[in-house]
């Protein structure tokens, strides 16, 4: 069985990526993996419904991080999906026998080692399988504090969960990694891409324009939807913002940590300043989340309201727009 170093991380895809690369001797942190993978994003898509509530995303689509990091760093990433669960499990076993740790996309609801309270129907949860002993697979799931195990039957069910983002047995692994990485070049490419997505896309549902559109809608939810439905919608906004409810403005702070690392990678002190600004913006998102939580829990303080929540989102949008425009201008 391979020696695999399990590390708990804030977010599953960037965590799996960082842990897999560490196995191959590449010291890429989780924030660096998230940043190089162009993970930061915002979109509000009211016409797409999750459990009858509008889709809001604070990160890039599942799978994008893996592909972008592999492309940017010149890694040989192999990915496969399957129609036949039996073949999918055989392919996994084959790789494990060759001593290769394998990343899997799974449905988190079907993973029995995840506490019941944290299970929900999300089919793009990533984990690493690094060994097999009889009927049990050795699992490094980055949301867990320790490495764990899962039975073959349970793993198969999780790999073939049905519904939106169905994993279809998806597995991936790095077949080859270069000895040296073009980190600076890849970081600049990713910084530019994210900055353009956040501040320069002329579509009203994406980036900072999407935030303002959401704010405009959110302020009117009590009048438009009624109190109960408005609270459900507000709960959805913060549920999508937080990583399992406890991360604050998780993705903003993760990207701020990436900017901080870029200060060293690019030997550019301005990146540290950009990082500090995004951290402050992350704190504002947290204030919004805390206010929204108080409203949802019906323990409002003076000044808490849907309109105040909308104002906070607009403030975040204004500051993020300015920040990403400054990053673009700085990188030239």
């Amino acid at each position, binding site marked *: 069985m391979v020696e695999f170093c399990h590390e708990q991380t804030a977010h599953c895809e960037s965590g799996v990526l960082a842990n897999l690369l560490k196995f191959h001797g590449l010291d890429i942190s989780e924030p660096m993996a998230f940043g190089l993978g162009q993970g930061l994003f915002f979109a509000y898509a009211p016409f797409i419904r999750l459990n009858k509530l509008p889709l809001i995303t604070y990160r890039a689509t599942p799978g994008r991080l893996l592909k972008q990091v592999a492309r940017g760093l010149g890694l040989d990433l192999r990915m496969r999906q399957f129609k036949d669960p039996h073949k999918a499990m055989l392919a996994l076993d084959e790789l494990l026998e060759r001593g290769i740790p394998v990343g899997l996309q799974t449905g988190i609801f079907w993973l029995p080692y995840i506490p019941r309270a944290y299970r929900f129907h999300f089919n793009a949860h990533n984990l690493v399988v690094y060994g097999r002993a009889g009927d049990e697979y050795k699992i490094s799931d980055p949301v867990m504090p320790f490495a764990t195990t899962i039975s073959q039957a349970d793993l198969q069910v999780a790999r073939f969960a049905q519904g939106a983002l169905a994993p279809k047995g998806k597995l991936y692994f790095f077949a080859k990694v270069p000895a040296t990485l073009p980190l600076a070049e890849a970081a600049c490419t990713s910084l530019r891409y994210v900055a353009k997505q956040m501040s320069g896309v002329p579509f009203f549902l994406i980036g900072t324009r999407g935030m303002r559109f959401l704010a405009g809608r959110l302020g009117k939810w009590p009048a438009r939807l009624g109190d109960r439905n408005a609270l459900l919608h507000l709960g959805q906004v913060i549920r999508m913002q937080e990583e399992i409810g406890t991360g604050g403005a998780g993705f903003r702070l993760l990207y701020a940590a990436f900017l901080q690392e870029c200060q060293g990678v690019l030997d550019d002190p301005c990146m540290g300043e950009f990082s500090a600004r995004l951290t402050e913006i992350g704190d504002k998102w947290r204030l919004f989340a805390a206010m929204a*939580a108080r409203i949802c829990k019906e323990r409002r303080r003076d000044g808490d309201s849907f309109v105040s929540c909308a104002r906070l989102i607009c403030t975040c949008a204004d500051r993020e727009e300015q920040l990403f425009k400054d990053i673009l201008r700085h990188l030239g």
Partner: protein
Amino acid sequence: MKNLEQEVCRQICDVCRVKGIDCTVVDKGAPLIGPESVLGLDSLDAMEIVVMIQTEYGVRIGSEETSREILVSLATLAEYIRENS
């Protein structure tokens, strides 16, 4: 900071409006958030706690230290505050 766990417990009860809890006898190692929470707290309460800790102690629970680990219990939260304040 000897009784930091009790102090944090009282602040959490205040912010999250938890009533009828005697913080001097609460198990400091018991789960803080989730269905087995010793204070009956959920993930929405956790957001308020994260903001409260930053406001009261100037300690940010950032992205690299996962809040899942820090908010495991009153003991882990107090330890994190001690180490970072």
